[in-house]
């Protein structure tokens, strides 16, 4: 052992920065959530064009996931990693770059999403320049992190670090491979994948964003801050090992459960379901280790609001990770998919697990970082109760909304007709529950505002200059001799004794490689067949690319975020085909870059919308939906009747599509002219039917052309009425 001790200090300034960012973006994200919650029961609250539900909903999800939860992860990771490794972060400059880069990305998101710049893939909406910035900042974080690992003064890495490592590696992989796209302008791009494959990649990403952005980082935080706050040892080291590896390996497979009964092939759907079921106990391993760490400390929970936050967080984690596997069962999913049930499920996780773990952590950190007493413990308690009650109101209302709508959609009367054939009837039934959600959300935000106030008052009593404690620790001996006695017994006995894992913990880079291998192997098992098996997507001869005008309309559909409320994927279920027409085939989506299948039906499915209504109906409906459907909750889009179609940009769109293999033929040479010709024809027919004059260069015509095309290729092929 080296007798020399190094003296060093921890970088807490960066932790303080991330802590404030967490809380400020948290409030912003919650507020946008509240706004969109009000927009559903009160469509007048949509302020077109920039502040409609379709544009704000992605801003809400991005803000709470990447800004609130992301900054919370960084806060806790920078604080705990330095202490667990007994070293300062390798580069203060990279830490600062990470902080400011990340905040700049959030600001860019807050500007571009309301402007309608979106890739229209959930939680991956940000357009390609921002995606590149995310990759750069993330790599800077990773480099700083991994070099810090090599500079550590603690031989073995603690379980929290395992979870951080898994998060850093996997998020990078997910982000890069889901966002591969071809630009068609500074803020417009098309996914290189189409239809079934794009859907697969998106939910490989989407599900694992939940796993490796909202679960593993927070398990890492739990493993540090919970034993710290309770002053109790972790319940079981062996359980940590087993649930870490099983979680990391199994999670990756589960993505396809987001696509049950869609045009995704059955085998992928089945894999997604079975691996989700197997994921139940690995997830609960974290809950068990968290809750049982409190054994012998339960009396503290009644007195310490920080522990209360942690207990509710871990309990919410347990509930949502039980519900996840349950929802992944195909028959359960058939009922819950496209409904608010899933919204309630994710809010149990987000408000309970991510939110409460963050609040508990922030309250624990505040006196330590600001080197003073917390301003008011009473306010912490009040925050806890307001937020707990808020979560309860939210989830009870939205679970019942989900179950109600799911059951209404599938109800048949005794004559074999849909009990509620008019979609808007199933929406009206949810309105009271939407208002209850508004009340619940308001309570939650009130709690978070108390937190900000409490933190501000705490910060105000900080010392004039922060004390920077000097820590002493011995550097690692370059020659490491494993001091463990050789283990006795056969292979299984040695395996279960976990000595091998103890050695891995002494080799963080090897450990990281093994984590990457686990994640990549699991991914390739699903990705390779999805892309290589031709029979997954039988081609349909009558399916043709969109005309240039329809493509322009599709760009508008993406920009306005229509996919946030309308699916384009009819499932092969009797009550779906009865309502919407023939189920969607994989071959129908081959030119869909990106896929627009959607995941929630706040409005009806549009996969076969083409020809259901006259052109003029769409024109009037977009201007004011309530003029044609009295009780519709859809926002009005009057600007579509005045905005001019950007004809030159259509060429860029067509060229980008052609580049990724869409057979555009003539359109690659004269897309704008073709679009103009079709627009004039359509505008004339709208005018002839008694509609407004002079729409030939207005966006509404492009959007109408797109909507009227949906599902027509298959109808034409089967000899239906054109």
């Amino acid at each position, binding site marked *: 052992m080296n007798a020399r001790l190094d003296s060093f200090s921890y970088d807490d300034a960066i932790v303080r920065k991330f802590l404030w960012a967490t809380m400020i973006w948290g409030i912003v994200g919650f507020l946008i959530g509240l706004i969109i919650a009000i927009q559903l029961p009160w469509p007048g609250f949509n302020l077109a064009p920039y502040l409609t539900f379709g544009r704000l909903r992605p801003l809400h999800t991005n803000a709470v996931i990447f800004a609130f939860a992301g900054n919370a992860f960084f806060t806790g990771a920078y604080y*705990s990693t330095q*202490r*667990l490794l*007994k070293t300062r972060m390798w580069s203060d400059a990279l830490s600062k770059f990470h902080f400011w880069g990340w905040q700049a990305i959030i600001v860019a998101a807050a500007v571009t999403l309301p402007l309608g710049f979106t890739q229209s893939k959930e939680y991956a909406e940000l357009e390609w320049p921002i995606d590149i910035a995310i990759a750069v900042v993330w790599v800077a974080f990773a480099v700083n992190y991994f070099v810090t690992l090599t500079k550590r003064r*603690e031989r*073995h890495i*603690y379980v929290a670090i395992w979870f951080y490592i898994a998060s850093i590696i996997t998020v990078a992989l997910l982000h890069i491979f889901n966002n591969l796209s071809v630009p068609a302008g500074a803020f417009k791009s098309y996914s290189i994948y189409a239809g079934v494959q794009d859907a697969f990649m998106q939910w490989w990403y989407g599900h694992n964003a939940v796993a490796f952005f909202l679960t593993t980082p927070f398990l890492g935080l739990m493993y540090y801050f919970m*034993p*710290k706050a309770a002053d109790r*040892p*972790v*319940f*079981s*080291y*062996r*359980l*940590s090992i*087993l649930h870490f590896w099983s979680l990391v390996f199994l999670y990756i497979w589960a993505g396809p459960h987001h696509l049950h*009964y869609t045009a995704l092939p*059955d085998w992928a*759907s*089945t894999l997604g379901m*079975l691996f989700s*079921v*197997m994921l*139940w*106990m690995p997830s*609960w*391993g974290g809950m*068990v280790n968290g809750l*049982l760490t409190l*054994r012998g400390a339960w009396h503290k929970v009644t007195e310490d609001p920080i522990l209360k936050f942690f207990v509710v967080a871990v309990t919410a984690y347990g509930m949502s990770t039980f519900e996840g*596997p349950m929802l992944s069962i195909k028959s359960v999913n058939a009922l819950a998919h496209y409904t608010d049930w899933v919204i309630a499920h994710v809010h149990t996780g987000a408000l309970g697990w991510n939110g409460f773990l963050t609040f508990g952590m922030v309250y624990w950190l505040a006196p330590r970082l600001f080197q003073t007493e917390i301003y008011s413990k009473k306010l912490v308690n009040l925050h806890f109760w307001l937020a707990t009650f808020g979560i309860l109101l939210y989830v009870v209302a939205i679970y019942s909304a989900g179950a109600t709508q799911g059951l209404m959609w599938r109800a048949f009367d005794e*004559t*074999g*007709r*849909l009990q509620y*054939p*008019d979609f808007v009837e199933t929406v009206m039934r949810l309105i009271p529950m939407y208002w209850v959600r508004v009340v619940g959300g308001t309570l939650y935000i009130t709690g978070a505002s108390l937190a900000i106030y409490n933190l501000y008052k705490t910060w105000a009593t900080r010392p004039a200059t922060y004390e920077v404690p000097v820590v002493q620790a011995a550097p690692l001996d370059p020659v490491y001799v494993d001091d463990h006695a050789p283990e006795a017994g056969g292979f299984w006995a040695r395996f279960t004794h976990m000595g091998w894992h103890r050695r891995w913990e002494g080799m963080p880079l090897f450990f990281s490689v093994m984590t990457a291998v686990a994640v990549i192997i699991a991914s390739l098992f699903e990705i390779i067949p999805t892309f290589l098996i031709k029979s997954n997507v039988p081609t349909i001869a009558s399916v043709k690319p969109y005309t240039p005008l329809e493509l322009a309309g599709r760009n508008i559909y993406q920009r306005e975020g229509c996919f946030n409320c309308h699916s384009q994927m009819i*499932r*092969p279920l*009797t009550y779906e*085909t*009865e*309502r919407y027409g023939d*189920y969607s085939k994989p071959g129908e989506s081959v030119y869909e870059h990106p896929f627009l299948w959607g995941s929630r039906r706040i409005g009806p499915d549009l996969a076969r919308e083409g020809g*259901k*209504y*006259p*052109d*003029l*109906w769409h024109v009037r409906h977009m201007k004011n939906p309530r003029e*044609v*459907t*009295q009780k519709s909750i859809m926002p009005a889009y009057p600007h579509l009747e005045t905005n001019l179609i950007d004809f030159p940009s259509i060429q860029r769109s067509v060229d980008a599509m052609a580049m990724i293999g869409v057979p555009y033929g003539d359109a690659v040479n004269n897309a704008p002219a073709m679009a103009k010709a079709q627009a004039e024809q359509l505008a004339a027919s709208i005018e*002839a*039917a*008694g509609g407004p004059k002079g729409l030939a260069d207005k966006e509404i015509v492009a959007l109408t052309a797109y909507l009227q095309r949906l599902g027509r290729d298959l109808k034409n092929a089967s000899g239906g*009425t*054109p």
Partner: protein
Amino acid sequence: MADKDNDKLLEHAYDGIQEFDNPLPTWWKWIFYATILVVPIYMWDPLGIGVGPGKVKAYEQQMAAFNAAHPKSAGTYTDDQLAAFAKDPAKLEAGKVVFTTYCAACHRPDGGGLIGPNLTDDFWIHGGKPTEIMKTVTEGVLAKGMPNWGKVLKPDQIEGAVAYVQSIHGTNPANPKAPEGAKFPSDSAAAPPAVAPKAK
């Protein structure tokens, strides 16, 4: 669950955090094994609740069973029956609600026509006999933009709407849409419509 007095602390500590050397909880281990066992059972499917024939085949079976249980009723209405509905105040009242909710957006609340044709005059594009009106409402005329209401409305709602449409005949609303289609009942003495039927 391990008794906490028997817990053995591992010798290592990280920033003061210690760990117990507790075994995996038994229930946890067994449920984990059980969920793994679900895989072969689901694939083998001895109880018929597992992987099954795939979603498309399963759908075709369900549709066959569904259609067998609910034979499509052939047009059972007669003109007289539908004409009688138009004199039934209860039907008319219900029909007015349906008309205001679903039809008025295109045919105007007074039936004078807007996107859709005037329903109060003597001219009908798709036939003015009660059974013909019924057919137009139920099956729609997609090419002309009349939705297929048979999918959206229930039979008694459609009966009401058809009754109501018959009842507003001849009401002469203000600013009606020009007549379209053929006169009904056809009257050989009458002049052809002022505006030639539109062929769309």
